[in-house]
């Protein structure tokens, strides 16, 4: 199968859906001629024109609100939010308006929009351009949250998101835009709420989101060499969450590590770990371990930044601890 970059995968998904459905349009800063700073949208304005690839002023709350209104009345906007950190600026329009409209109207006014944004540290962009804020969005009922872990997922989930009649937030890892993966030429969609078992294993389950799937896969490689068989699972969407697949794996391996690039505290790892603890407790040989990003603003200095996020070594080490039974003494 051909291999394309994550960036290209997103671009293709958007182009295909825009061809299929005239009501789809893109709105955001420097999305047209510039194709975004990450160049993900290059070429789209040439095909679809400035009416469907709309450059906005630097008004995140404004264009997010505009997207909500357009979505409510028959369009399907794809909002481009340049950095995930800017979510803080649009939370009201996203969480008080988009997320609640369908419910508050008793099922009358739905908001089919997609918010494309990103996450991920280690790009030397410091505290306001490096956050992974998907947990905040996942906490708000009414929003769906997709976290592609490769070009394949980026394409399939984006297409599903655009066709979804609810507001969907997609977090792309900005460090992965140039990473290639096999992506079929033919059209495909990835349904929401279906986890992907990236690698089967017996001894320990590694659940990773977004780029942490790669981290888990790398850890699994290392562990395999040591005779530890790790299962790697990518939930792909955290809302809705495919609990069944996660629980089945937990029950099989009896040991679970959840890895996510958001801050660890009050984040995604706590939710997933809790669900597994609650529903597979008597099958577990050890507590579900969590590995999130450190609870610190992301530092600029490379010497500091790199140690704030989970690494394959860290995950492998945690898996070894789980296997060794060492946890018994800790807990």
């Amino acid at each position, binding site marked *: 199968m051909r291999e394309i970059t994550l960036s290209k995968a997103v671009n293709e998904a958007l182009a295909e859906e825009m061809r299929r459905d005239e*009501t789809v*349009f893109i709105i955001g800063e420097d999305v047209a001629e510039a194709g975004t700073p990450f160049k993900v949208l290059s070429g789209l304005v040439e095909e679809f024109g400035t*009416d*469907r690839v709309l450059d*906005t*002023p630097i*008004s995140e*709350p*404004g*264009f*997010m*609100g*505009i*997207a*909500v*209104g*357009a*979505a*409510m*009345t*028959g*369009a399907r*906007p794809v909002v481009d939010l340049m950095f995930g950190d800017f979510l803080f600026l649009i939370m*009201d*329009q996203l969480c*008080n*308006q988009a997320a609640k*409209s*369908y*419910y*508050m*109207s*008793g*099922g*009358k*006014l*739905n908001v089919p929009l997609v918010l494309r944004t990103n996450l991920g540290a280690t790009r030397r962009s410091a505290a306001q351009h490096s956050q992974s804020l998907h947990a905040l969005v996942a906490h708000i*009922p*009414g929003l*769906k949250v997709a976290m592609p872990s490769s070009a394949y997922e980026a394409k399939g989930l984006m297409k599903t998101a655009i066709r*979804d*009649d*609810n507001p969907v937030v997609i977090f792309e890892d900005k460090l992965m835009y140039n990473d290639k993966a096999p992506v079929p030429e033919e059209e495909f969609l990835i349904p929401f709420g279906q986890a992907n078992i990236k690698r089967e294993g017996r001894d320990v389950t590694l659940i990773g989101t977004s780029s942490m799937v790669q981290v888990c896969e790398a850890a699994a490689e290392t562990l395999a060499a040591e005779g530890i068989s790790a299962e790697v699972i990518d939930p792909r969407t955290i809302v*809705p969450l495919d609990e069944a697949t996660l629980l089945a794996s937990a029950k099989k391996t009896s040991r679970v590590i959840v890895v996510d690039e958001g801050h660890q505290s009050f984040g995604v790892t706590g939710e997933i770990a809790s669900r597994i603890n609650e529903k597979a407790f008597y099958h577990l040989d050890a507590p579900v371990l969590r590995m999130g990003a450190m609870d610190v603003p992301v530092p600029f200095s490379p010497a500091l930044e790199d140690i704030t996020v989970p690494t394959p070594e860290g995950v492998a080490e945690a898996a070894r601890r789980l296997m060794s039974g060492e946890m018994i003494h800790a807990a």
Partner: protein
Amino acid sequence: MSDTKHNTEDYLRMYRQMVRIRTFEDNANQLYLSAKMPGLTHMYSGEEAVAVGICEALTDSDRITSTHRGHGHCVAKGAEFKAMFCELLGKEEGYCRGKGGSMHIADQSHGNLGANAIVGGSMGIATGSALRAKLQGAEDVTVCFFGDGATAQGLMYEVMNMAALWNLPVIYACENNGYSEYTKTEEIAAGSITARAEAFGIEAHQVDGQDVLGVNALMQDLVPRARKGEGPFFVELMTYRYHGHHVGDINREYYRAKDEEQDWKENRDPIIRMRAWLVEQGIASEDEIEAMNSEIREDAAAAVDYALKAPYPDTREVDMHVYTDIAHACA
């Protein structure tokens, strides 16, 4: 006002709609005072000429966005008493199946995109509806209602900028009733409200909001112009709320003199003014008007009765309408 003979029906309907709003509010206030309504609500009484003067210049396919003080807009845009009272009481037959209540009430089928409990929260939505109209070549115009207090929200300037850059068919209707909650407008608004719109290159008007014919005449001019792509427009409507900020705001002399209230009620009431004009012009007799008033009163009483007896939504509805495609979000 030249076409008096030809527009008889329009004039009577405007009067009728204003009385319907006043009557609705009197009943809502009574429901609160007799502890039959859950929560609080914000009365539109005194401001009827604004909603009616504007909405009578709109068609059913034109959209509006409304506010926390939204009953007037809802009635003026074509809603019926029964479903409105049911909503106010949290009943299943309410426009939002009881899920919205007073602050989210809307007859969505007549183009009302919802009342909004976030001050200024609908400004993006209205502008987005107008963007959708432009992109899709639709002819509808969107009116964004908001109060003087909402002019302090930055979102307004963000979306006015985009509306102006893109010539969107949106009309910003600022209902300046002299107060936001317990504070006079001059204490919270520096400079001039219309000048703020003008600074973005938007044509702005200030108009007497107690004169339904004046309001309507202005809108009869602006709405078609907006349809033709000459928008956006900004209108500041000088008006007054008769009640407190909400139904529970009863002792309000610390921020507003009784004399002032009395002056507006006695000398500038939009319904009294319109009634006198109708009689003077020979469009309706006092008797005819009284008959209309009592018919409306009876209608309202019947609707209140109906709503009081109507059933609450089934508790199974609690996790419905979170998503369009997930029947029960918490199942």
